[in-house]
């Protein structure tokens, strides 16, 4: 069950040469700004495609331009949180968390029932009926994490998940993320402490 990236990604005049293995467990990715940490997550999520080479999960090819293969984000068994939480502004906290469940065919009522425990796990149980514009940055990120958990994908991608949460609130969320029962977690972080708690650690250099 290893995700393998072996290829290049061109962004403007910058070329990222990637040769990575992302095994099960928690992998922390650190490195300076511009090293391509977020790009790796976007590649794995299916929001971007490699310009050359391939992305494989075991022996299944997810992305290979030369072979004409690209599995789009919505077909991949992956969920993701972004640096700036991306919540749907017209939905409540509970509806945001329930959104991926709705896409799996659950009815609205069912999805809301299944989503509620996730809201409580991230400490957003008292925010269920609020819309995102009423949330603090930390509350929004907690909601986004709950939505990513609710999707029950086998891989979760976290792009600086603690960045938007103020210092005092990070302890419980960090513990929660380290205890996720998701088989594979890829965690982009600036904090060396996060990297030390992870099972694996990848440090990127500047290209």
């Amino acid at each position, binding site marked *: 069950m290893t995700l393998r990236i072996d290829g290049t990604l061109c962004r403007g005049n910058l070329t990222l040469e990637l040769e990575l293995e992302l095994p099960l467990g928690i992998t922390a990715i650190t490195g300076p700004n511009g090293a391509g940490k977020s790009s790796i997550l976007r590649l794995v*999520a*299916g*929001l971007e495609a490699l310009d050359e080479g391939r992305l494989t999960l075991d022996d299944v090819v997810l992305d290979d331009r030369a072979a004409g293969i690209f599995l*789009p*984000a*919505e077909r991949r068994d*992956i*969920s*993701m949180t*972004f640096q700036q939480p*991306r*919540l*749907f*502004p*017209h939905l409540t906290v509970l509806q945001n968390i329930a*959104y*991926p469940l*709705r*896409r*799996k065919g659950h009815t609205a009522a069912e999805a809301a029932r299944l989503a509620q425990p996730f809201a409580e796990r991230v400490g957003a149980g008292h925010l269920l009926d609020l819309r995102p514009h009423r949330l603090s940055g930390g509350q929004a990120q907690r909601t986004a994490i709950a*939505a990513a958990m609710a*999707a029950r994908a086998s891989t979760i991608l976290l792009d600086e998940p603690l960045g938007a949460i103020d210092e005092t609130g990070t302890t419980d969320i960090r513990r929660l993320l380290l205890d996720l029962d998701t088989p594979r977690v890829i965690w982009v972080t600036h904090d060396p402490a996060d990297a030390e708690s992870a099972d694996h650690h990848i440090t990127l250099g500047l290209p």
Partner: protein
Amino acid sequence: MITPSRRPPLAILVPAGLGVALVVVPIMGLLQRAPWSSLVERLASDTVVEAIRVSLVVSIVAAVLSLLLGLPLAWILARHDGRMAGIVRAAVLVPMVLPPVVGGTALLFALGRRGLIGQWLDAWFGITLPFSTAGAIVAATFVALPFFVTTVEAALRQAGTELEEAAAVAGAEPVTRLLTVTIPASRDALLAGVALAWARALGEFGATITFAGNLAGRTRTLPLEIFLALESDPASAVAVSVLLLGVSLAVLLALRGRWFSR
């Protein structure tokens, strides 16, 4: 209190004040001439009521058409930056800068009975657009559509990509993303676009009179009624003008959150 340093210099203040006066003085002139005591009575006269009915039908249908045609168009323009998108955008925006009477003339030669497409509409389906309510609707939609497209394209561009990515990662197919995220998340812009398109359609004059004519009960909308009444019954013309002024201010007020709050 305006501190001396923050007070704009006279060279700026005077033309700015003249600019405001240019808008405000005519409105005052209109209001001062309005036949307030007989306003309701004049607006309730048969000819005005008929023009109100035509105007409502034409402007509402034009606003709905702007939504139905403009939303897919705005979405495509917001998601594509190529040369082709630039050409399409320019073409759609033409009615905003084109003199409406030129638009009406163009419609006549495209959709008139001997027009490019009009001759086939007539021969095959027996549809004649000029001098019909349908023709007035086409003229109103022609001028209103770009107002909807520009308003909505900007919103879809701003809100769209990031939220659509989040929805994709959450398992939503492209059409589902559009229906469950992009459209509801830009609801305010859609409403503003419909309101602007409707207001523009309601005020449409030049393209309508050129293409659809001035037939009572069919194509004579409120602006055309004003134009006609100015000759015979100026007081009624002012009364209808006040009505349209009121509607315009109401639209502006409804959109205030969009324009005045920042």
